[in-house]
């Protein structure tokens, strides 16, 4: 188990401590963590790929404006931030639950 040891920052990380984690257990944990990260990542990647494509291929938003500002400016300039924040908060909750469940499982075995 990782520990927090005060150490000289110029030394390399001390890897010698036994991890106490079997190959299989680590593999399972990493897969679960990675899968969760990629799931949330796909939301952002989808938005970053799709929005430019959508804006280029449609004239739906052309000349639409809100208090004098074109809607496309608002979508790009402000619309992404709530999405990014939402993904961050939601991911942090899920991964914390996942890691807590993992710790519980390790302790109970």
């Amino acid at each position, binding site marked *: 188990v990782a520990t927090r040891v005060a150490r000289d920052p110029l030394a390399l990380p001390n890897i010698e401590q036994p991890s106490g984690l079997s190959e299989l257990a680590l593999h399972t944990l990493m897969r679960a963590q990675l899968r969760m990260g990629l799931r949330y990542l796909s939301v952002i990647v989808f938005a970053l790929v799709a929005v430019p494509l959508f804006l280029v291929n449609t004239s739906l938003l*052309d000349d639409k404006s809100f208090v004098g500002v074109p809607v496309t400016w608002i979508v790009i300039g402000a619309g992404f931030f709530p999405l990014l924040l939402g993904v961050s908060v939601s991911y942090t909750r899920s991964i914390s639950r996942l890691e807590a469940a993992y710790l519980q499982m390790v302790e109970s075995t």
Partner: protein
Amino acid sequence: MIPIIAIAIVAIASTVLGALSLRVARSTSDFLVASRSVRPALNASAICGEYLSAGTFLGLAGLVMTFGVDMLWYPVGYTAGYVILLLLVAAPLRRFGAYTIPEFAQGRLGSPMLRRVSAGFVLLIGWMYLLPQMKGAGITVATLTGAPYWVGVILVAVIVAGNVAFGGMRGITFVQAFQYFVKVFALSSAAIVLLIVGFGVSGVQAFGSNGPRVRECTRIPMAAGKPLQAIDKIFVVPGFSKSAAAMLEALGIDDVSKVRVSGGRLHEDLVRRGAVIDSLARNPGPRSSNVHPYIEVFPGSSGTTKPTTSSPLITKIADPTLPASSVEKQRLAASNGCGNAGSLLLRVLPAGATYVTTANDVVIVPKGARVPSLVGGARVDGKAWERPFASKAKSRPHPLYAGYSLIIGTFLGTMGLPHILVRFYTNPDGPATRKTIIVVVSLLALYYVWPPIYGVLGRMWAPDLLLTGKTDAVVLLLPQRMVGGLGGQLLTGVLAAGAFAAFLSTASGLLISVAGAISHDLAPSATPAGTSIVRRFRQAAIIAAIVAALLGLRAERFDINVLVGWAFAIAASSFCPLLILGVWWRRFTWVGAMAGLLAGGGAAAVAIFTVMLGPKLTGWPAALLAQPAAWTVPIAFAACIAGSLLSQSKVPADTHARLARMHTPERPVRG
């Protein structure tokens, strides 16, 4: 005066805060990473303080003003970069416990050589990112005081080198957090005032106006050798500096008898050629006692035209031998604004006409006319400015590709910025790291909505900058243009303080990383006796600052935020694959990592240096080289993976332990 005081306050406050914390910075650990005792909110403020640089404080507004809506992807990518950092890298890296990317490279893959090459990329990215900070400081001081460009560059280099060398990271944490709030306060408060003023005067006019139109007759002093193309009819007051003959030729006057002169250096020469001596000059009365020498041309001279029908019958130019300031004054007095500009001798450029400027030319753009464009320039006009990916400029080809490449570079580059990663080690553990990032994303959103507003206002109130190319100064110039007087001075002061906070904080963070890479990753391990680690770090900081200043002196002609984007592109093409594969892939080897760094990072660096130093390109080569991330990042990943698969014997024996260390959750602290 007020802006200079504001800059001084920020500079002194940063130094004092840094010096105060010097007393607690004793151990190396304190020096480099603030002893890992910083809370998420404070740490997040410090990360943002360090991250928000001249690129977004000054540069982004300038880019929006020039290129329009496509530039809004920069802040999106800059923020999304933290989210991918959160999703894939942050907590494992924090648990691993390496302080810098080179250290992670060696710690994870076990190759000292990989560490040195990584440190080389830290230097490359760090200096590339320091360039725009230096430029920002140079133009800020120049804009506010009229001092030469180098003054600001040297000033910031000295302050930052001093702070870093004597305060280290501990000092910087408080200073950085303080500087985030200075920046966000400055940018938001001034933007709100300017929005109210701008909206009150004219409503939002930047959009739908089909090009940057001046609000009133605007006189734009030009440097020599700029090829203009008029969009609407404009006028040029040629700056004469040579002989009477050259002047007559430049104006296209073939009949010198229509010229009337009243003294000045060219007087004798012109009279000898047949010009008429002005009666006022021959019989100077009381009225003429403070009239400068001038030259007038009677109507009908070929090659000159009057701009308006209501202009006087004769045109007049100032004596070119007068000092520039009094020439300008006299011209202003003589022209009385554009309505009467006919009293100056003008060259008319009808719509579509081109003209190459000579020294001291002044372009006059009549009220409501569009600012001329530069031939071959990349400025985006008309509907293309407000619509996404619509640029058709030859020097700005393939806007959709450029947009995607920009997104890739900023999205994946954030994690590879050397000065950002080290900040995460000031979090106590993985979960705290995640909380910190959530706060960072919020603080960034709070900040990034403001810079584009300055770009839009700049399009309306300072379009002349599009012609002179000084768009990076638009944030600082708007208050004087829009408010003026004491209010304008105060707003300029607030913005100048924020801008300086931006240079100081980012440059400090970068300098720590660069100095750390030099003193701790690159320096020979055998140190001369008596040289402490801290002392070595200080020497490295001073050397790094000198290099940054020397490079910064040469960076004036590049757009600030474009330079920042390039630093991100190199980071994305080098460190992003190293970090992601290092955290998640058990078959990763140092050979693969090295191949990825050299192929991806190397390709990005070559592309960018070609754009910076090479000839002007058009078409696909221009697009691919100016925004390389879209092809260099895949190259980097491919090289990492191929290199690793070909060198499976080099997989470190303790990979399991290392991965376990990164991925095993911390036990919650039980109270």
